[in-house]
């Protein structure tokens, strides 16, 4: 058996394990503990198999297909494992294993609650099955079945705590948007199937539509996958739905499900649409840059820790699509090597975001578990009460802020390097657009640093802002091990960029025809994406020198008897000692930026001097600009349609007759 076939069987085993986990979830109705020792271990197994399958598919650079005797009689299910699916299987597995280790500790509190643990177990298994199915599908039919399974199962996970009205509302919005997305994707496949006459991707690949229909399919795919990925202006469901789910599910949704949407988009646009047009790339760059900047501006203003993380996911998906746009621009103007660089940057960004956002959502879950609070205005001082979670969360925040030598920096650096090659483009318009997009990315990075300084600083530093947070405790071993695993994965992605780029380069070659072999031309230590004299980056020396210098300084300046460290109260200017209420609040920290970017937010703010209270509501302007008018318009159309519903039998019979006549007229 060759490596490719072995990888495909492993992926199949992962699907079976996920289904078994879903089935074993049913047992939790009688025996709640089975969730911990059967359903979650099966998920961990599934994650490990997916991870192995992904790495094998990437390392062997092979494509394996198979036909399953399932599905419709004239359309059996085609499955395929190629390097592109391998990248996303790797992402899925790398996040799923820690989540499965984290789950038992986190779900223990639900055992005595009113929420159905069986529902959690079953739908988690089905959700993972759906995501795996999307990654392995090689025909539109299986793809859509798996896609809808993923959407519906995650809907039930969002409504898990359905007694909270807010969660029900978020879940309904999610369901609605998922349906619009599903419809758009279905139509895109319809356009693609029309030219080749088959739903199999293999036929679509060899029969791409003509340029006009390809653009229509591109627009539909962008609408469908973009909704799922949370691109502006279709992102509003995301910050509602992701925080509503239990934290380990939030981690899966933000870290993996959004990436599955990215996968679908890449599969359709880079592979099935035929030769790419640079106009598509321009659209993507504009949408991605806007999404990134607006997403991070909103992340900066959230006081709910999980909502903050969800908005940051919007930002990061914007960056991924921006890099994909660069790849399309380069590909459309005949620079496949540069397209490969931009594509690898996008995939690397997807991997980093998955690992970091998984880590941060698990950290937010640990905060929720240990302090029973997720509002930044009531948190504070957790670093001393939850030292390990605090350290892991700090690493996640630093990675998200794209600081060297952490992993977030590598993908951002690669994206910058791709954008800086814009001088090779022929069109003056593109030569201007690409650097401006890079400027937007730079702004996003700076704002992202502010957002994560604020998140970590408000929750973990300073002093506890409420009494119950003062009694917070560190979480159990399983939950810590899960976070530590993700930190280790982040470290690998941060310190071994040439290895990761080498693996992802096979996916880039599959899609653009060019690889990124030069990235390791100076050895594995140095990442040189274009050429060694153009740009190089070596994270391991940076980390080593930082550690060495820090250690040397600590040793040289170790406290002596003359100058020990003395503990004292913080400086009080000679007045009353400072209280926790005198600290800068999270809303106060972001106030200067809120004031400067006031045009982006719909602010509802007032202060009452008598009671010394301040109320602030930051909402998206899109609610008023787009969603509310759309909803009102829909209501009007529904009112109009209701006139047909009189309740008289005669009226209904006449409608039937008219329909019949029209149908007969059409047939004749």
């Amino acid at each position, binding site marked *: 058996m060759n490596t490719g076939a072995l990888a495909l069987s492993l992926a199949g085993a992962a699907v079976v394990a996920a289904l078994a986990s879903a089935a074993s979830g049913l047992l939790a109705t009688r025996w709640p503990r089975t969730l911990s020792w059967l359903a979650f271990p099966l998920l961990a197994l599934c994650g490990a198999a997916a991870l192995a399958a992904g790495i094998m598919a990437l390392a062997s650079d092979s494509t394996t297909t198979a036909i399953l005797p399932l599905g419709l009689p004239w359309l059996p299910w085609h499955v395929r494992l190629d390097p592109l699916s391998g990248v996303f299987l790797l992402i899925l597995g790398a996040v799923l294993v820690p989540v499965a280790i984290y789950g038992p500790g986190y779900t223990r509190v639900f055992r005595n609650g009113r929420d159905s643990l069986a529902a959690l177990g079953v739908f988690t298994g089905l959700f993972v099955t759906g995501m795996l199915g999307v990654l392995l599908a090689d025909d539109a039919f299986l793809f859509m079945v798996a896609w809808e399974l993923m959407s519906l199962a995650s809907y039930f996970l969002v409504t898990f705590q359905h007694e909270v009205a807010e969660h029900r509302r978020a879940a309904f919005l999610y369901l609605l948007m998922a349906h619009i997305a599903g419809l758009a994707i279905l139509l895109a496949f319809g356009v693609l199937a029309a030219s080749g006459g088959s739903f199999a991707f293999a036929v679509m690949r060899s029969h791409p539509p003509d340029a006009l229909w390809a653009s229509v399919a591109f627009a539909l795919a962008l609408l469908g996958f973009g909704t799922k990925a949370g691109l502006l202006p279709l992102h509003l469901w995301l910050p509602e739905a992701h925080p509503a789910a239990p934290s380990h599910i939030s981690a899966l949704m933000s870290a993996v499900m959004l990436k599955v949407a990215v996968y679908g988009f890449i599969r359709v646009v880079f592979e099935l649409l035929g030769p790419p047009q640079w106009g598509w790339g321009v659209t993507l760059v504009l949408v991605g840059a806007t999404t990134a900047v607006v997403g991070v501006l909103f992340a900066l203003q959230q006081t709910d820790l999980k909502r903050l993380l969800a908005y940051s996911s919007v930002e990061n998906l914007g960056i991924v699509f921006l890099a994909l746009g660069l790849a399309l621009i380069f590909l459309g103007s005949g620079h496949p090597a540069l397209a490969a660089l931009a594509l690898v940057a996008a995939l690397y960004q997807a991997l980093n975001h998955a690992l970091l956002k998984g880590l941060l959502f698990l950290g937010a879950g640990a905060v929720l578990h240990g302090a029973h609070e997720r509002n930044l205005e009531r948190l504070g001082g957790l670093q001393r009460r939850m030292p390990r979670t605090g350290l892991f969360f700090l690493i996640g925040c630093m990675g998200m802020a794209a600081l060297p030598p952490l992993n977030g920096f590598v993908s951002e650096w690669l994206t910058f390097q791709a954008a800086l090659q814009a001088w090779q483009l022929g069109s003056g318009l593109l030569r201007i657009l690409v650097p401006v997009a890079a400027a937007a990315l730079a702004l996003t990075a700076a704002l992202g640093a502010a957002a994560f300084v604020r998140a970590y600083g408000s929750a973990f530093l300073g002093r506890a802002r409420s009494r119950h947070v003062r009694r917070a405790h560190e979480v159990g071993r399983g939950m810590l091990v899960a976070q530590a695993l993700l930190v280790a994965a982040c470290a690998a992605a941060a310190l071994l960029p040439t290895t990761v780029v080498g693996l992802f380069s096979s996916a880039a070659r599959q899609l653009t025809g060019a690889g990124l072999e030069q990235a390791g031309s100076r050895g594995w230590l140095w990442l040189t994406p274009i050429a060694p004299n153009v740009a190089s*980056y070596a994270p391991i020396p940076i980390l080593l020198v930082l550690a060495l210098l820090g250690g040397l300084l600590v040793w040289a300046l170790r406290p002596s008897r003359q100058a020990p460290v003395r503990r004292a109260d913080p400086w009080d200017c000679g007045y009353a000692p400072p209280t926790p209420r005198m600290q800068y609040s999270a809303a106060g920290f972001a106030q200067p930026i809120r004031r400067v970017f006031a045009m982006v937010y719909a602010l509802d703010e007032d202060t009452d001097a008598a009671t010394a209270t301040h109320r602030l509501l930051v909402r998206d302007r899109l609610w008023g600009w787009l969603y509310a008018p759309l909803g009102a318009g829909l209501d009007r159309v529904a009112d109009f349609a209701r006139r047909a519903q009189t309740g008289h039998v005669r009226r209904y019979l006449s409608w039937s007759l008219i329909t019949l006549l029209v149908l007969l007229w059409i047939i004749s």
Partner: protein
Amino acid sequence: MNPLAHALSALLQPLLLLAAAPLLVAWIRRVKARLQNRRGAPLLQPYRDLRKLFAKEAVVARTASPLFRAAPYLVFAATLVAAGALPLLSLRLPSAAVADAIAVIGLLGLARFLLVLAGLDAGTSFGGMGSSREMLVSTFAEPALLLVVFTLAMTAHSTNLASMVQTTLNAGLVLRPSYLFALAALLLVAIAECGRIPVDNPATHLELTMIHEGMLLEYSGRHLALMEWAAQLKLALFAALIVDLFLPWGIAAGFAPGALAWAALALALKLGVLGALLAVAETALAKMRLFRVPGFLNLAFMLALLGLLSHVILEAAT
């Protein structure tokens, strides 16, 4: 060239900048004092201050977490590593391949991230105020700085600092409009990043005006010394960056002693002139209100963007 000389070059160039940084600050203070008809402190005063602080006991707030004590070491180390990628005297700098210009900006961002967290750690209003304002300034300064680097990288086709310097040297004295815009932008960014007038005032402890001092308010003893030294190093680093990117003439290509001596003299001269210019600007200008700072930095961002666009439009053929 033997590896020993390379290693020495990578080791000694940042240490030289580190040693000279307090002197540059003293020089600026001295020129400022003379412009204000004062005699001013001797040039060795910052060194004496550092020695005094290193010998004193460190007081740490009871409310602070371990991060507060780790931050000075990490901030200092990150700034020094960033300085390590800058060619000062000789272009043969192996560490320039470790971190390019974007990574240098990232390392400065790392130092700032930790500094801001340290400001929040004790849970006092002043620390929070300083941290919040620092993030406001950096939100605008960092993209402008990156744009400046992008503009120059578009001409040099490289983000490696040694290659960028080499390109400028090879091109000779060519007046590029993009360079003029980028230089203006970089000067504004450097003032903001180093917390100088009119953005921040390094000499004040008045709570309404302070940014950098606000974050350091809880620090004392060796922790404060490290933080102060890191800030001085950052000022020297920005001065050296301006010199490297726009006025690199005089820098040695190899390790010939004569060329190195000449490079050291040229560097001292250029840094001295830059420092004197800063002193003049600080004497002539008043500090701005905080909410005029974004406008100031937007100007820098727009100048850098203009530089980039003028490169694309006017110089793309090169």
